[in-house]
């Protein structure tokens, strides 16, 4: 196995994992039940005063769980192809997640994020800076998407795809169901009136 194919595998796994993280982040923000049970804790923590370590047990468990799953899957792919790049890419993504977490949360301080008055970021196609991510914590529902972990370009793509992705989210599904039952009720009323 040559270095080029190993390198391609590392980059490929990293890019796909980063996309999966951004997509999952988008979906959890459009799923109130899941958000309440899991991710809201993270937002509450970073919107308050800094009062603990950058990575707590919940965050280590969340990132660790994702890493265990991707490393297990990629290790099998490496075994089947003889290309160690798949496994290395998954490990690298885990290390990157931990390091970026430490970097991106450097705006967490004695002054709560919402009181820092951060301006909305530009709709950039570059890297997601610490300020870009801090704005996500203070204004997660802003029209400018800030779900990406490293490449802000994923947010721009998500903004473009949002009309098609939204119906697939928990909120979108619930709205579709509600609209369907409202139509059924209206149709029932109309037919009832006709009788």
């Amino acid at each position, binding site marked *: 196995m040559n270095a080029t194919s190993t390198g391609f595998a590392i980059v490929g796994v990293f890019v796909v994992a980063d996309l999966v993280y951004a997509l999952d982040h988008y979906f959890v923000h459009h799923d109130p039940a899941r958000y309440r049970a899991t991710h809201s804790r993270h937002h509450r923590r970073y919107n308050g005063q800094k009062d603990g370590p950058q990575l707590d047990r*919940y965050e280590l*468990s969340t990132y660790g*769980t994702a890493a265990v*799953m991707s490393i297990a899957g990629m*290790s099998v792919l490496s*075994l089947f192809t*003889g290309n160690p790049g798949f496994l290395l890419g998954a490990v690298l993504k885990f290390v990157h997640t931990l390091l970026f977490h430490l970097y991106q949360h450097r705006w967490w301080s004695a002054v709560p994020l919402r009181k820092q008055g951060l301006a909305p970021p530009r709709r950039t196609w570059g890297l997601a800076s610490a300020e870009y991510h801090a704005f996500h914590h203070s204004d997660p529902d802003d029209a400018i998407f800030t779900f990406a972990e490293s490449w802000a370009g994923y947010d721009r793509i998500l903004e473009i795809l949002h009309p098609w992705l939204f119906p697939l989210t928990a909120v979108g599904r619930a709205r579709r169901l509600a609209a369907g039952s409202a139509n059924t009720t209206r149709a029932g009323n109309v037919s009832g009136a006709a009788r």
Partner: protein
Amino acid sequence: MNWLGWSTRAIVGAVLGALAGAWMYHDALGRACDAPWLVGLGMGAGAFVASPDRSSMRGLLVASMAIWVAWAVQAGVDPYSKEGLFGFYRTLTVRRLGAFAACGAAAFLLARASINPKARRRVAGS
């Protein structure tokens, strides 16, 4: 926080199943029968019997581990031992690839479920 459904009971069940499956696969290889799916069946069945809950994440993990256990068993047996530990991919014919995929599939389908029909499903946050 445990999204994997990876309880002590599930681990013990999977490990005991892995040992039984590894023994059966090794025995089968000695009879010229290449059946890595025996490991998947053993590990999956172990987790299925022992797990108090259902979890697709656990199924995926057990499937990956079953393939690694099957790989370890065959790596010590001729003719596969000649390829060394990481030359496994060179031994994969279509039939053998299918057999290892069946190993993962059997482990996944069994390990994601529980023998208890009322077992609750593990989801994120539970």
